[in-house]
């Protein structure tokens, strides 16, 4: 069905767990940094923008859930 896939000549044997935890740590740090920047904007310029309160709740819940999911899948991968 996908003939080009068979032409790959290398064998992927995985990524070391340390590197993956490092990637996750760096990404989580950047995500938290961006979140602080966004929350700062929503709180500083909230005048005439009442939906920012609702956005904060949705954003914090969603980001936490996604970061926890990433953490969970990484834990499962490294513990297999």
């Amino acid at each position, binding site marked *: 069905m996908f003939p080009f896939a068979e032409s790959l*000549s290398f064998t992927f*044997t995985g990524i070391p767990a340390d590197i993956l935890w490092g990637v*996750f740590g760096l990404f989580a740090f950047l995500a938290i940094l961006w979140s602080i920047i*966004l929350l700062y904007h929503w709180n500083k*310029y909230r005048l*005439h923008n009442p939906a920012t309160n609702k956005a904060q709740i949705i954003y914090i819940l969603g980001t936490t859930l996604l970061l926890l999911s990433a953490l969970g*899948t990484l834990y499962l*991968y490294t513990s*297999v």
Partner: protein
Amino acid sequence: MIQLAADENLIAVFRKHNFYFAVKIFSLIILALLPLFLYPVLLTVNAIAVSGINYLLLFFYVIFITLLWITGFVFWTNYYLDIWILTDKSLIDVDQIGLFSREVASLRLDKIQDIKVETIGILDTMLHIGTVHVQTAGNEKEFVIPQVDSPDQVKDLIQSACNNLRAAGN
């Protein structure tokens, strides 16, 4: 933060039509779905010999989705904080250019000489989206409210506020 004068009353807040914001969010959703179509291709690759590969792929997918999620909120911030405030004395343009770039300009209503509405294209016509140009008497910068919802109503509101101010001044 925009602080109005004590004797200044808020009449309306305008922002761009949410259609253009929705288009950006739709493109993010398409991007989020793309890896799901690539997944069957990856399964055909015999060169992958990793136990728990699905967890690894899921990990990168969740990271990717988190990136799109944050990008979506950056789009929303730029859309939602980009506003025009009409008061009984002035028109204030809060231009949210980016997260660290913001410009606030104010125009006194008594300086307004002409208000023009421009609607271009089928989509804008069908969705009642247009650009309102507010021209002043002097050499001051022209105020432009682009891609606004119901531009005729916006024009009427500004015109009415101008008329009220002039009537109160006479």
